[in-house]
């Protein structure tokens, strides 16, 4: 069955490795074996996809991550919702990218690349997505509501594209070292490094965008270990890119960086999946028993890489790095180190017996001087080839920062804003003057991102507002009025600041959990971010009714038929009711979920009659207490959090610009020639 598909892909992988692709001229045979590997991986992936789409709940993975009510897009994305499936996805992407790579790769390079694939398949063997349950349930648990979002659907595949992209420089490095072909290495590796950088960076930004739009707390980054596990390799890749871009090459540094970056990718995987951070991170998986295996894999790869590097260290020659390259790399690696240190702190302190975590302020404060220097370097990019390249940008920054500092009396903040404002401007001007050279677009985009980050972090304001239906309140210099609950959400009208708009934040029950969906009013200069915190109703008297009985209230007849057994999951009780008025009858199924610390009610709306029914209490004797009310008229109290976040748009616009700039650079730079200017 599929197990044999697995074993075949293992055999393909091992047979290919054993054939020592590097040693003997068996090139063609190995190519076909590798194609077999790609074929079997694709087969396995197709199988999982079909199982998910066809609701085959007897498979544990399908049971835990899907349900019959899941829309088609998320049936597909549930493929990578859990650990086993995401490893399969990673392996699949790795297989296909490896196929592209094999067209230009030398045998030894493919050997090392295949090693990384082998590592993934080993993980997969021990964490089989095709495990069966003992009994076949008729319904699945459903996908985590937070993952039912288009951004979250594409986030993992793009991140894995990035990881795979970084495995290639790793493989190229080891092969180049062993075969003593360091000279050609930079030319071959740069495009792949750029590719990995673009994908990983895009994946990170998409994750931030998701956090901003879905999580409702108004932020986009929380320095969570899982977030950092992707950020640290990305920072290191950025350093590698700059090292590779300098001509002539700073060989030793580049090799070390290429190897270390991939090891950090593996380490990041370890962080995410080992359960070590379960107590400190909202994201991480619970302990899946993987820790030992992952750690062993990292150690093996690390030892191998060090051995290869060490054996060739003496013969590696390279140029001394220019000041700007050295400074850039130092800044990026310094930032990576600080983030990594902060992430590891819970583990280190726990090992020392005094467990502690680090406040988010550490990351911001700790990287501040580095970011400042980095901004100055970005600002000086157009002057890169000149001497004293920092001089003019430095003057510009001081010119920009001084009036700001005088106004706000916050010199450090003014300096930071000044640096990235100047960086954005110099690169924008250079982009135009150089006739659209893509690297200026890229650096300008990065400056824009950082400008957005610092301004929104420092100048956001938040207020809490409590409004009754129809009431007008004040928040952030605007009038805000609550018009009532509608099918699209909680209708709000905001006026002021030279305009007005409607907002529809929502509190919905999704998959058994109450999800608070914010409304974001996006603008170039400001985002207005509205989160519903709570909604309280006054629903009138409770109507007590027993099974089979009918109760009359306000011209409506409500009959309680019985409990709806289909909905019985995790403490949820649903009742089947019929409500009749003016000769029309409607069937409704309000529900109640009792939890240890509260209860959630699923209210049944009847638009034709303009009323709603809620299940309030369940008697042990079999009677229920219902509430019948008019949602439009029922007095409500809505608690809101309203925030104004300046320049958040710069984060997304800057990212888009940087990505476009990166793609154009990638397309132009498929070959690297030592005489080519940036």
């Amino acid at each position, binding site marked *: 069955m599929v197990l044999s598909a697995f074993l075949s892909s293992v055999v393909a992988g091992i047979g290919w490795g054993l054939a020592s692709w590097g040693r003997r001229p068996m090139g063609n045979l190995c190519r076909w074996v590798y194609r077999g590997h790609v074929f079997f991986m694709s087969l396995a992936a197709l199988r999982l996809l079909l199982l998910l789409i066809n609701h085959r709940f007897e498979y544990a993975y399908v049971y*835990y*991550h899907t349900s019959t009510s899941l829309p088609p897009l998320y049936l597909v994305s549930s493929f990578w*919702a*859990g*650990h086993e499936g*995401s490893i399969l996805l990673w392996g699949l992407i790795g297989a296909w990218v490896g196929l592209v790579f094999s067209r230009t790769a030398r045998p030894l390079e493919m050997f090392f690349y295949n090693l990384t694939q082998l590592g993934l398949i080993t993980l997969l063997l021990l964490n089989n997505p095709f495990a069966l349950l003992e009994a076949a349930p008729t319904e699945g*648990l459903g*996908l*985590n509501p*937070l*993952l039912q979002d288009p951004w979250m659907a594409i986030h*993992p595949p793009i991140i894995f594209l990035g990881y795979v992209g970084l495995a290639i420089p790793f493989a190229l490095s080891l092969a180049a070292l062993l075969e003593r072909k360091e000279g050609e290495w930079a030319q071959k590796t740069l495009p792949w490094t750029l590719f990995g950088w673009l994908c990983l960076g895009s994946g990170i930004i998409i994750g931030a965008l998701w956090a901003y739009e879905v999580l*409702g*707390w108004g932020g986009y980054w929380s320095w969570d270990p*899982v977030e950092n596990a992707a950020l640290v390799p990305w920072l290191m890749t950025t350093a590698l890119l700059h090292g590779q871009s300098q001509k002539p090459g700073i060989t030793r540094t580049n090799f070390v960086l290429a190897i270390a970056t991939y090891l950090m990718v593996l380490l990041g995987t370890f962080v*995410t999946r080992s359960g070590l951070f*379960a*107590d*400190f*991170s*909202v*994201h991480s*998986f*619970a302990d899946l028993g993987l820790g030992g295996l992952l750690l062993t894999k990292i150690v093996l790869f690390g030892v191998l890489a060090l051995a290869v590097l060490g054996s060739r260290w003496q013969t590696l020659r390279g140029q001394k790095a220019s*000041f700007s390259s050295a*400074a850039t790399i*130092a800044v990026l690696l*310094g930032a990576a180190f600080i983030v990594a*240190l*902060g992430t590891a*702190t819970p583990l280190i*302190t726990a090992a020392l017996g*005094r*467990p*502690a*975590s*680090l*406040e*988010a*302020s*550490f990351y911001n*404060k*700790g*990287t501040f*001087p*580095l970011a400042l*220097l980095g901004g100055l370097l970005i600002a000086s990019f157009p002057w890169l080839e000149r001497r004293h390249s920092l001089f003019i940008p430095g003057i510009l920054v001081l010119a920009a920062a001084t009036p700001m500092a005088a106004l706000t009396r916050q010199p450090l903040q003014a300096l930071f804003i000044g640096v990235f404002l100047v960086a954005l401007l110099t690169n924008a001007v250079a982009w135009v003057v150089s006739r659209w050279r893509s690297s200026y677009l890229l650096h300008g985009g990065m400056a824009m991102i950082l400008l957005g980050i610092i301004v929104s972090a420092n100048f956001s304001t938040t207020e*809490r507002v*409590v409004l009754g239906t129809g009431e007008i309140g004040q928040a952030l210099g605007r009038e805000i009025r609550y018009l009532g609950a509608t099918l699209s959400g909680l209708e709000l009208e905001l006026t002021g600041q030279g305009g007005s708009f409607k907002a529809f934040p929502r509190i919905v029950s999704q998959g058994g*959990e109450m*999800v*608070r969906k914010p409304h974001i009013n996006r603008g170039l200069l400001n985002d207005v971010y509205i989160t519903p*915190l*709570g909604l309280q109703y006054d629903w009138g008297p409770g109507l007590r009714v027993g099974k089979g009985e009918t109760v009359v209230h306000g011209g409506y007849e409500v009959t309680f038929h019985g409990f709806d057994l289909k909905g019985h999951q*995790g403490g949820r009780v649903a009742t089947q009711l019929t409500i009749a008025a003016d000769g029309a009858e409607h069937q409704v199924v309000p529900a109640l979920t009792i*939890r*240890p*610390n*509260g209860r959630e009610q699923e209210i049944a709306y009847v638009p034709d009659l303009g009323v709603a029914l809620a299940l309030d209490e369940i008697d042990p004797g079999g009677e229920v207490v219902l509430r019948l009310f008019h949602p439009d008229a029922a007095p409500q109290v809505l*608690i809101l959090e309203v925030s104004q976040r300046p320049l958040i748009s710069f984060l997304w616009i800057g990212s888009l610009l940087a990505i476009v700039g990166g793609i154009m650079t990638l397309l132009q730079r498929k070959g690297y020639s030592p005489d080519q200017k940036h």
Partner: protein
Amino acid sequence: MLGFLIVLSLAVASSSFLSGLTPYVDFAQAKKSSRTVQVLGILLPQTVEDETGLRFFLRDDHGEVMPVVYHGARPFGFDGAERVGAVGIYKDGVFQAQRLLVKCPSKYRGE
């Protein structure tokens, strides 16, 4: 020049490290401490949310109970959570939470 900047950065990093360190303590220690700490406890019934914030009670492994108030949006998964973590300062009889940590409900094994 570069060396000087690196040393400066390290100095800044170290000092912000020390000031940002948030020890993970039990409730008895939290109540005595005047600095930012991290606590974890079982969420007790009777959660209230109104204009003064989200108020609830936690109980730690030693059986000690502590009232907590949080002024931000209720994190996803809070309603179904068994254990909740909080980062903040104990002041005037209430733990003022700056950040809440809620683990994904155990039925989700997803990312």
